[in-house]
């Protein structure tokens, strides 16, 4: 059955690619179980788990009571037993009740048991804004998780990666926080499934360039591509580096690119202050100190609570802000 989903006639949306990845993983390994709030009959509020219960039964894809800490803890217990749970946190901000389970158990179990108890849980978190969501529906919480040793933190930006990286995440022996860029759920591409791209931990150059590197991931990749496009019209060649994986981080790819361009702009949607972009900017500034011709600048979410729908266009990084930063970088030094 999964085959039918796996060879799409029409172009595929990212949401459907994720659905296909879940379906194919469940078909291949009956230890893979999917659960969370509304993932069953409804197929999830974004329809990402659509049809899985019908296809695999209530025992493989089921609705849980409304309790995120318990969803996470149940996943940990099931993983200890030998299952490979893939749980859904319905929205970014609704993963917060599960933080203690994630920080104190999911991230540490392997280490505290000297490797005796790996917990290969995949935590799917739709994240970010741009969909006109009311408060608590548009947070970007990757920085909290990336700062927590023991977790892998990844986010796809393309339809192909969405499928491939989720398969990799499910295959991973480590817990993986899988951030799904909400705004890109309905982005489309013609991809033949099952597709496999690079392994977790490797970044991808989405557009080669020579004058500056745009370092981005998830929601901001299309924005950086658009910026690079515009810049090209003015004869400025920007390199767009899609990190794909925040933890592990592909330092080599970042250094390779910045060594070439001598300039870096870090772009993400999460709050800038103390955000993951700070780690990126700090690393680049330290490791590429002698190659940098301009300060590494950051284009990120503003240091305010995510604003209401009518305001979010002012909050979200866009191509114009990226290009302003590029101008500053190019005119510097």
């Amino acid at each position, binding site marked *: 059955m999964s085959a039918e989903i796996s060879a799409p006639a029409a172009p595929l949306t990212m949401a459907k690619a994720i659905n296909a990845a879940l379906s194919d993983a469940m078909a291949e390994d009956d230890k893979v179980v999917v659960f969370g*709030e*509304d993932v*069953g*009959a*409804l*197929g999830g*509020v974004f329809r990402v788990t659509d049809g899985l219960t019908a296809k695999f039964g209530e025992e493989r894809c089921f*609705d*849980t*009571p*409304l*309790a*995120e*800490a*318990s969803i996470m803890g149940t996943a940990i217990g099931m993983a200890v037993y030998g299952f490979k749970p893939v749980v859904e946190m319905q929205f970014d*901000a*609704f993963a*917060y*009740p599960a933080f203690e389970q994630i920080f104190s158990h999911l991230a540490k179990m392997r280490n505290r048991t000297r490797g005796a108890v790996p917990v290969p849980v995949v935590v799917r978190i739709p994240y970010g804004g741009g969909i*006109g*969501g*009311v*408060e*608590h*529906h548009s947070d970007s919480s990757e920085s909290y998780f990336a700062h927590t040793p023991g977790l892998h933190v990844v986010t796809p930006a393309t339809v192909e990666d969405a499928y491939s990286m989720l398969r990799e995440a499910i295959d991973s022996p480590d817990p993986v926080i899988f951030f799904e860029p909400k705004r890109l759920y309905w982005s489309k591409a013609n991809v033949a499934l099952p597709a496999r791209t690079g392994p977790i931990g490797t970044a991808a150059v989405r557009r080669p360039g020579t004058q500056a590197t745009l370092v981005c991931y998830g929601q901001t990749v299309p924005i950086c591509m658009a910026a690079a496009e515009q810049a090209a019209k003015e004869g400025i060649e920007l390199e767009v580096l899609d990190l794909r994986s925040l933890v592990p981080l592909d330092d080599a790819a970042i250094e390779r690119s910045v060594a070439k361009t001598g300039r870096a702009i870090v772009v993400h949607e999460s709050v800038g*202050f103390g955000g993951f972009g700070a780690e990126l900017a700090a690393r680049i500034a330290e490791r590429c100190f002698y190659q940098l011709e301009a300060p590494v600048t950051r284009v990120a979410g*503003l*240091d*305010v*609570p995510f*604003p*209401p*729908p*009518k*305001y979010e*266009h*002012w*909050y*979200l990084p*866009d191509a*114009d*802000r990226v290009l302003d930063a590029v101008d500053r970088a190019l005119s510097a030094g």
Partner: protein
Amino acid sequence: MTLLDLSARDREGATAIAVRPAWDSEPLRYLDEHGAPVEGGARPRPESLAPAALLRGYRALRFARAFDTEATNLVMQGRLAVYPSCRGQEACEVAAVHALTEQDWLLPTYRDSAALVLRGIPAVDALTLLRGTWHCGYDPKQWRTMPQCTPLATQGPHAVGLGLAAKLAGDDSVALCFFGDGSTSEGDFHEACNSAAVYQAPVVFLVQNNQYAISVPLHKQTRATSLADKAVGYGMPGVRVDGNDLIALTAVLGEAVDRARAGGGPTLIEAVTYRLQAHTNADDAARYRQSAEVEYWRHRDPIDRLARYLTAIGALDATVEAEIDEECEQYCERMRAQFAEEPTYHPDEMFEHVYAEPTTQLLAQREMVRAEYGSGEGEGAAQ
């Protein structure tokens, strides 16, 4: 093995096992679904049965329905970002608001916009969150009404804090906190109920059991036959009441509020009702429930039920209905007019009230956005 087996085995004396008292299985009512008084049901205060009092309640029900219907139209016209309807649950909204004085605190969820306007908050302000123009459009302190809460059950501890504060301040105000059935599965619900009982805080926990948490039916939230059973474990009174019976709700809430005000501590109330609409306009209820079920509940509509009773006792007739129609229509017309014009926004708003004083970092960011805004980039970004 079911609870019943257990209580049976218990009577044989196998072990002492706490089971829910069987007599609590039927929700408390005053009117049956046809609007006829039932035997041995709720015991309303006499004054609450006075035609004038009942008519006030009925007007409020009709008003809540009209407001909810208009809001539903507005969201379909794209005037609201999202709208979670309370259609079918109006009796809970009305009973809760009418049970409180102006000094009491109300803690609503996204589902309870009707309660906001019933408290007197202007519709534009009440719907600010769902319109997407700001997170909260009214002054929670002026209205003694907290912002509508979206992170489920997190408002529970706030109610405990408000109640405990009033108790410590020697003020007799009460906090009434709304929950949905699904949110009773959250840890915060438990922590709030348990703490409120320990503090004997003046709080009323009102669970609107509308049978679903988005698509998830009640039996996937609890194994117990009543959400009010949780009260036992908190050592507080728990009541299961028909949430579509305004008279029964008024009796139960009145008693709970009086008890809290008198220093008797919190009460947990489960109001058994039904969400007639989808979870929100964005939801597709056909994926998880049968229209037959919806039909069943349409026949238990809280408004029809009270109307039948009022008509039977001669307190309601076509003229009064016409008056009410007129009032509601006028209110909705004003709403339509108010929502027709888009307010203007300025990006500065985002930076205000993050802290009492903006940090130097925030001032710098405000400058950046102002510059874009001036240069039109701000709007540009909107496309």
